[in-house]
Every structure is written in C-alpha cells, then in structure tokens.
C-alpha cells in the first residue's frame, strides 16, 4: 500500500497554490461519498425516529401556509394575481422549490455547529457534513412533489411533458443553496447569531419572492423581483412543469452563472478555512 504522508503547518493550503487545491477538493469529495451518504442517513433517520407523523410534517406545514394564503386572497387582503392554473398546484410547487432552498440553507448553516462535539473529537471531511445537511431538504421536497402529482390528478390536469427535465433545472438551485450553505455554516461556526439572522431573512425573502403569488405587475415589488435570483430559480422549474417553457430565459441563465460561481468560490473558501473554524466551534 502507498505510504500516506500528512503535513500540518500554518497556512498549509496556501503553500501549494490555488490550482492544486481544486484537485484536492474534488478528490476529497469523491473519496467521501460514502461518508456523506452515511451522515445524510444519520440526519434523516434521527429526524423522524421519535415522531408519530414523521415525514408527513413536510406536507402539513406547507398546506397550512397555502390555506392562509387562500383565506387572505378570498377576503381581498392580498391579490394573488393571474396564474392560470389551480392555485393550490401553483402554490405547492412554489413552496416545494422554495423550501428546497430554505430548508437546505438552514440545515447547512447549523451543520457545523450541531456536529460540534464530533468535529472536536474526530478528524473527518466537514464538506460532507454540509452536503449531507443540504441533502436532508430532498425528503420534504420529494413528498411535496408527490402531493403535487396527486393534485394534478385531482384537478384532472396534466403537467407539461417538459416537467421531466426538472432534475436538470434543479442543479442551479442546488449549487446556489450549497454555495450559500458553505458560507453560512462557517459564519455560524464563529458567530452563532448567523443562524437566527438567516431564519428571519428567509421569512422576509419568501414574502418578497413570488412563491405563493404571481409575479407582480405594479409597485416596488416589480423591481425587487427583477433582481431577486431566487425568483428565477423557483419560477423557472415551476414554469416548466405548468407551461412547458420558461418565460424569462435570459434572467434564468444569468442566475445559473451566478449560482455556479457562488458555489465554487464558497467551496474553495470553505476548504481553506474548515479547520480554522473547528477551533471556534
């Protein structure tokens, strides 16, 4: 067997040059696939073990939000806008994509802090920890998509055939979530306020993003929506399922590029500092 030599010294990574670090990162990710899966399994199994309704909670909470929006709409407080499909399908799809992002980001931010004692006792890849945390968001997402399918049948409608391309259109959303997640997990490791700040920000952001309502045509929300990357990330896959095409290609492509860059920059930064953060956990 090849002898493995490890060297620890201050600013270790810097000495090796930036290019070789990318190689290192990807070998590490590849080697730790099984670890990532095991960490995901651990989070998944433990989250639902001591609960009666288990994964069903993933569907109960969105249904409550949708019900609130329906009531607000009927009473005239809020105008959902023209959407052309049954509202519950539109809203649930929106929530599925939105929560894929928000659940993922919250889980990532807390991943290092929650694993604190473990990080201080065993040396393992912290990237796996963040990725496994993001992967937790897949479970409620899958259930919500299943619920959407049931709604389609219930309303006697058929989704667009282009809907099968969804996995590809999710990639930018995944990269965006992971990129931000790497960054916030580091910050949260050092300053615990970050976790709370993120929860509050996400709540605001959800109301400023056309998840439960259609894209506004008047008012300041038009400008907000235009520069909100999450609008494109959520509405593009939703449009694809409902209409079979994406209404704002240009915006979506730019956001895709942003997501890819964000992911690589944050992954790189995470790699350089993951051990430093262990000291502050």
């Amino acid at each position: 067997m090849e002898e493995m030599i490890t060297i620890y010294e201050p600013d270790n990574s810097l000495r090796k040059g930036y290019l070789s670090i990318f190689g290192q990162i990807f070998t590490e990710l590849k080697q730790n696939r099984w670890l990532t899966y095991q960490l995901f399994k651990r989070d998944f199994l433990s989250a639902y073990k001591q609960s009666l309704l288990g994964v069903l909670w993933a569907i109960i909470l969105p249904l409550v939000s949708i019900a609130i929006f329906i009531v607000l709409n009927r009473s005239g407080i809020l105008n959902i806008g023209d959407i052309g499909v049954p509202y519950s399908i539109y809203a649930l799809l929106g929530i599925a994509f939105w929560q894929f992002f928000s659940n993922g980001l919250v889980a990532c931010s807390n991943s290092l802090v929650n694993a604190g004692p473990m990080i201080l006792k065993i040396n393992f890849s912290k990237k796996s920890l963040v990725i496994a945390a993001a992967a937790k968001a897949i479970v409620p997402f899958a259930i919500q998509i299943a619920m959407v399918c049931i709604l389609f049948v219930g309303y006697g409608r058929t989704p667009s055939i282009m809907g099968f391309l969804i996995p590809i259109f999710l990639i930018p959303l995944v990269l965006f979530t992971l990129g931000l997640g790497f960054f916030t997990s580091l910050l949260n490791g050092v300053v615990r306020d970050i976790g709370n700040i993120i929860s509050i920000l996400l709540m605001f952001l959800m109301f400023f993003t056309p998840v439960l309502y259609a894209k506004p045509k008047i008012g300041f929300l038009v400008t907000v929506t235009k520069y909100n990357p999450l609008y494109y990330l959520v509405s593009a896959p939703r449009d694809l399922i409902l209409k079979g095409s994406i209404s704002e290609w240009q915006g979506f492509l730019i956001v895709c590029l942003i997501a890819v860059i964000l992911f690589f920059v944050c992954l790189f930064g995470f790699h350089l500092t993951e051990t430093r953060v262990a000291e502050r956990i």
Partner: protein
Amino acid sequence: MGKDTVISVEHVSKKYCKSLKRSMLYGAMDIGRNILGLSSKSDRLRKDEFWALNDVSFEVRKGETLGIIGPNGSGKTTLLKLLNGIFWPDKGKITIRGRVGALIELGAGFHPLLTGRENIYINAAILGMGKEEVDKQFDEIVKFADIGDFIDTPVKFYSSGMFVRLGFAVAMYSRPDILLVDEVLAVGDVQFQMKCFSRLKEFRERGNTIIIVTHDMGTIQKHTEKVILLERGLLSCIDIPRNALNQYLSLMSGGIRANQVMSKLRWGTENDSERVKTTKPPSNNTQEDLCPRRFNYNIFEFRYGSGYARIIDFQIVNNRGEEVTSVRSSEVILFRVKVKAYKFVEKPILGISVKTKDGIEIYGNNTLYADIDVPPLKEGKQLLVEYRIHFNLQSGDYFLSAGVAEMTPEGISPLDRRYDLVHITVLPSDKSFGLVNLATDIKVYTK
C-alpha cells in the same frame, strides 16, 4: 525525518483565546485572511491569547508506544488534536506517515436515537472506513463490543459500558497505523480494560504506533516505552517511563518544581535534562550525605524537597543483622534511614515506598498513617528511623524510596524526598508466580 520515524513534531505551538467574544472576532479575521489567501500571522499573540502548547518537538518511531503525561491543562489533549489534524498548529510543523486513528472520546458521533447497527456504519464512515471494510468486519465488531441482542436497540438505551465498548470496537477495527488514545480506557470495567489493552498490545505487536494520554501511572509503566511530560504547554522532559513519572510525581505532590527549590538553596545549577538522569548530591554536603557510599545506592535516584531536613544515610539489614544488597522472597528486612535537620522541624513525617523496576508503586507507608509520634527535630539534630518490612515479593529488582516531610497548617510540605534511593534484588525462594509472594500453603484432601 528518519526512515522509521512515523511522527515528527518540530517546534509546534498552538494558541488559544481566553475571551469568547475576542475569539469570535479573531476567528472571523483568520477566516477572512485565509479566504483572501493572506498568511494568518498565527505566530504572534493577540490580546487575551496564550500558548496552550509552546515550541514542542519530538519524534516517534514506528512500533513505539509513547505516553503523554502532565497536570490538567498542560496541553496533552491539544497535542493529540494537533496530531490528529483536528486543529492546525499556529507555529511549527507536524509530519505524519500513515493513517491516524483517534480514540479521543469513545462513541463520539454516535446518535442516541439510532441503533447500534446504524451507528456502527455511520461511525465507521466518520473514522474513514469504506463500506466493504465495515461489511467485512461487522460481525467481529459486534462480537468484540459484546452487546448481543442490543445491536438493534437505539444506543440511548445502552449502558455506558456498552456504549464505550461499541465505540472502542469500531475505532479499533478502523485499522489505523497510528492510534491516539486519550484517557478513554478509564471508563470501562476492569474486564473491558483488560480486553482493550490486550487488543492494543496486538496492535503494537503488528508494528503499529500508539500514543497514550493518561493520568494512570500503571498504564504508562506497563504500556509505554517513552514518555513526554508536558507542563503548562511546555515539554518538560522526554525520558523512559520511570524517570518521567518521578518528575511528574514531584511536580504533582511538591507543587513547586524541584529545580526552583534547588537553585534557591544553591544546590548547583544542572540543567533540566541532566537533572532527570541524575540528581547529584550537593557538593558542599557530600561529607554529610553518606547514601552514595552504600552498595545499594541507586545513582539514578530522583530527589526533591526544600532541604530543611535531609536524609543523610540509610542501611539495609536482614534479620540476622547483616547488611545486604539482596534478600530472599518473603524474608524480613530492616530499612534504616538517618535524617538530619537544618532548621527546626516541629512535626516531621517519615515515610517509604516500594516500587517495581517498572515504577509501579507496590506499597507505601509513613509515620502519619501508622499513627506514630515523631518528636520535633531541633536544628542540627539527627533522627534514625527503622522500617521493618516483610518482603513478600517475587524475585526481581525493586526500588525503595524514602522521604521526610513536615506537617504544616497549609498541608504536608516535602523536605527531602529521595525516590528510588535504594536498589534491592529479591532472590527466588520457592516457585510461584505473580507480583507478590502470598506464601500459600497448599493442602490436598482426598475422600
């Protein structure tokens, strides 16, 4: 780095921050610098920072077992964490050859709600094992952990013994080349500890390296070949176990470092490394200290104390009154110790202890425990104390230590402690085995 060196630690330092708020600030600054590709300037201290480890250097060769001892807070665990790569050194360089496994806490990473089976897989993955490796060794892990039917029970219902057994089993089967062990074996019961140590022995016999952090002197004696003594982040000595332990004991019971006391009394100024090997009697006192003239005198004795009263002579005599260097097993010997006071000592305490050549303390006693009144000792006066010892020990080499201390309102203050002062050999008298000779009469009755 030599050919068979597996761990090389060169001038390694690690700093910590005392203030949590500042630690947050520094953390954010360090991370910022690291991301921007700037040097983290970790070699200097900022406000509220201190060196938890300071300029530590040593090497460990393949197959060696190294012990790390030191009082609480001396940096033992930090050193292990640096060796394991959990923390980065702030100065210096650590080079490691081979896969490192760490037993810093048994069952770290176990999730209480998950079953033993699930946790084995997860923990193994965290420790760096692949799926095939775990599949192959799963049965052995379960067998070693001895948890039987509980394998499919959530680990939160495990007894603490079962929990650590499972943790140990998984860690041992992750097949590292170098194993770091941090005080974890103390948690299990005796049977489990024996099992662990025999497992560690096998591990070592396969040519692997072990580093043990412990407060248990017996473990150090029995299982290590070389010991590092850390004291407030500094490496205060690297030596064979017996010498390092002596220094540690003096550190713990004296509270003050022996060389500080000695320099105060101007007993010569040997540097640390020499002091560990041998403490030469002070030159101006050679005429008074007759111990080195005795045949049984051990030149590697370790001596410390304030020196206000000193042991100036000793004698080992058998029950026929002859001065001897060896005794027969289960014979009675008289150990006579002469003490001279250099200052008025109001409540003297006199004591002895017997150690094996590995440094394991077999027996100790003193006038305080034995409830014997020792009269106050005036300056310049001498005192003779005679210990009558039943030497019920197996054949081998033993060391006798003698000491004189004073009872003060603040506690016991050591005046002169001479560890391993006398070397004595026990000759076999009858056939038996074990550490002591319990002189058993065996009778067999037939019906």
